[in-house]
């Protein structure tokens, strides 16, 4: 028994300046059309929350349910930073697997301000996210840059390698109607863009965007009765936390855990996220047809390629340079164009990754279709240790 995806929908990503609810409703309606269901067929709705839209963002489930028209459906709202969408999906899937409902809707949407993400406002010295800005000025890109520089020192990666990730993802994004950035770019353009956090430049770092994504999930029985042919199955949803001691400095922390008493765990946090998904699905990296990973920066995509097990640590650059991770390559990574092409709309992005898995696995990804796609993995990571990985199969 598994939960299946009956419908996937998005609102195109960009800077539209409208309320997040509008984007969410547009995505939800698109997912319902795709599933050939009415809103009133949905028994359970989960809204992935956003802190940037005030109270309606915190209680996103109710906000979307009201905007769609109160239907009496059961409801949940969840906030887990960048993992919000994956957690929302986990909640809906678990309800279905428990037999408590047949049809569930998962929606995430955001309207973001321009520039760096900032902490919640006010004077908040008890909030580590506020403190990292106040004491150090440590923005999100600063953390991505620490990882990027570490790759350069450990593995000899170069700024040209990082630029090549952007070139690859921009090419894929140019084939995606929902992507915000539809232009291909050259390595020269990336390398000429302004330095933001050395060694990362403006075009190495994903922008903040408005956007939305939604999924209609159902039980296999319902899908069969509904006449769905070969629906995409959710084989695993990983929501693991790190194992102590977490030795890679994570957003928004000032320090790692100490290894004074306990040696580091076998896997880094990011690697453990993917590992838990593989265990749950009974699959391994060798089974993947493609992966969507969290390219908050170009260099971070290379970390993820290693941490989801596509190659040993330090060798993602080699895969990239061989074209293995490009569309048409051996194991395409971020065929959607990734965050490089979409930008961040936090509660929507993990859901958007699963939309791409769905379209690819159905063989309906248009000109970016991966031939014979059978198994896809989507991985990301939420602030303060929210793991997020999803494996979908045909």
């Amino acid at each position, binding site marked *: 028994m598994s939960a299946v995806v009956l419908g996937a929908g998005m609102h195109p990503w960009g800077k539209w300046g409208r309320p997040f609810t509008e984007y969410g409703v547009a995505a939800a309606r698109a997912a319902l059309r795709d599933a050939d269901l009415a809103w009133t067929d949905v028994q359970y709705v989960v809204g992935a929350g956003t802190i940037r839209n005030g109270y309606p963002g915190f209680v996103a489930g109710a906000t979307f349910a009201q905007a769609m028209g109160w239907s009496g459906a059961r409801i949940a709202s969840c906030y887990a930073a960048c993992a919000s969408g994956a957690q929302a999906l986990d909640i809906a899937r678990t309800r279905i697997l428990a037999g408590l409902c047949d049809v569930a809707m998962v929606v995430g949407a955001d309207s973001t301000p321009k520039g760096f993400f900032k902490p919640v406002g006010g004077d908040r010295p008890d909030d580590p996210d506020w403190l990292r800005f106040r004491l*150090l000025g440590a923005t999100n890109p600063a953390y991505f840059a*620490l990882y990027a520089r570490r790759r350069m*020192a450990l593995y000899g990666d170069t700024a040209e390698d990082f630029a090549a990730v952007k070139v690859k993802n921009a090419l894929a994004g140019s084939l995606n109607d929902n992507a915000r950035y539809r232009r291909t770019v050259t390595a020269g353009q990336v390398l000429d863009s302004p330095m933001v956090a050395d060694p990362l430049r403006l075009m190495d770092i994903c922008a903040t965007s408005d956007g939305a994504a939604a999924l209609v999930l159902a039980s296999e029985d319902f899908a069969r009765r509904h006449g769905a042919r070969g629906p995409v199955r959710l084989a695993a949803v990983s929501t693991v936390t790190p194992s102590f001691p977490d030795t890679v*400095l994570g957003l928004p922390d000032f320090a790692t855990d*100490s290894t004074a008493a306990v040696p580091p765990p076998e896997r880094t946090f990011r690697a453990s996220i993917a590992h838990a998904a593989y265990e749950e699905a009974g699959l391994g990296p060798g089974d993947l047809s493609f992966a969507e990973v969290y390219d908050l920066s170009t260099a971070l995509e290379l970390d993820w390629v290693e941490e989801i097990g596509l190659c040993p640590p330090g060798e993602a650059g080699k895969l990239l340079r061989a074209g293995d991770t490009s569309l048409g390559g051996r194991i395409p990574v971020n065929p959607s164009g990734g965050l490089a092409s979409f930008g961040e709309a936090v509660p929507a992005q993990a859901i958007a990754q699963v939309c791409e898995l769905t379209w690819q696995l159905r063989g309906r990804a248009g000109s970016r279709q991966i031939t014979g796609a059978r198994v896809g993995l989507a991985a990301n990571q939420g602030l303060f240790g929210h793991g997020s990985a999803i494996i979908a199969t045909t």
Partner: protein
Amino acid sequence: MDAPVIDGWFTVDGGTAHLLGTRCADCRTVCFPPRTGFCPNPRCAGENLAETRLSRRGTVWSYTNACYPPPTPFVAAEPYTPVTLAAVELAEEGIVVLGQVKDLTVEELHVGMELELTWGPLADGPPVWMWGRP
């Protein structure tokens, strides 16, 4: 010295800066920032976390800078000069601690080099710990 930007995370003693962490009396796990209540080691029931001064020298785990002024609540100097940041690994504690870097640019840093704890003022006055040349 003005009052530090945050209480209890570092001290300047006779002109020498020290980061203040906690050490679990039961399993010896060290924490920075200092912690109250319970040891973070999931297999330790320790509740006796004593203040400890962290090693003052460590090696660079990684580093970067902020080429654009960070947003509030950071207070940027005017004119703005890029803030340098380093994550420094302290061998004895087995911990990596992030901090601003004093008087060094990214061109002068490399992974593995040794830095020493110092301190300096934020643009609006209060002192904060910083990593500097030994």
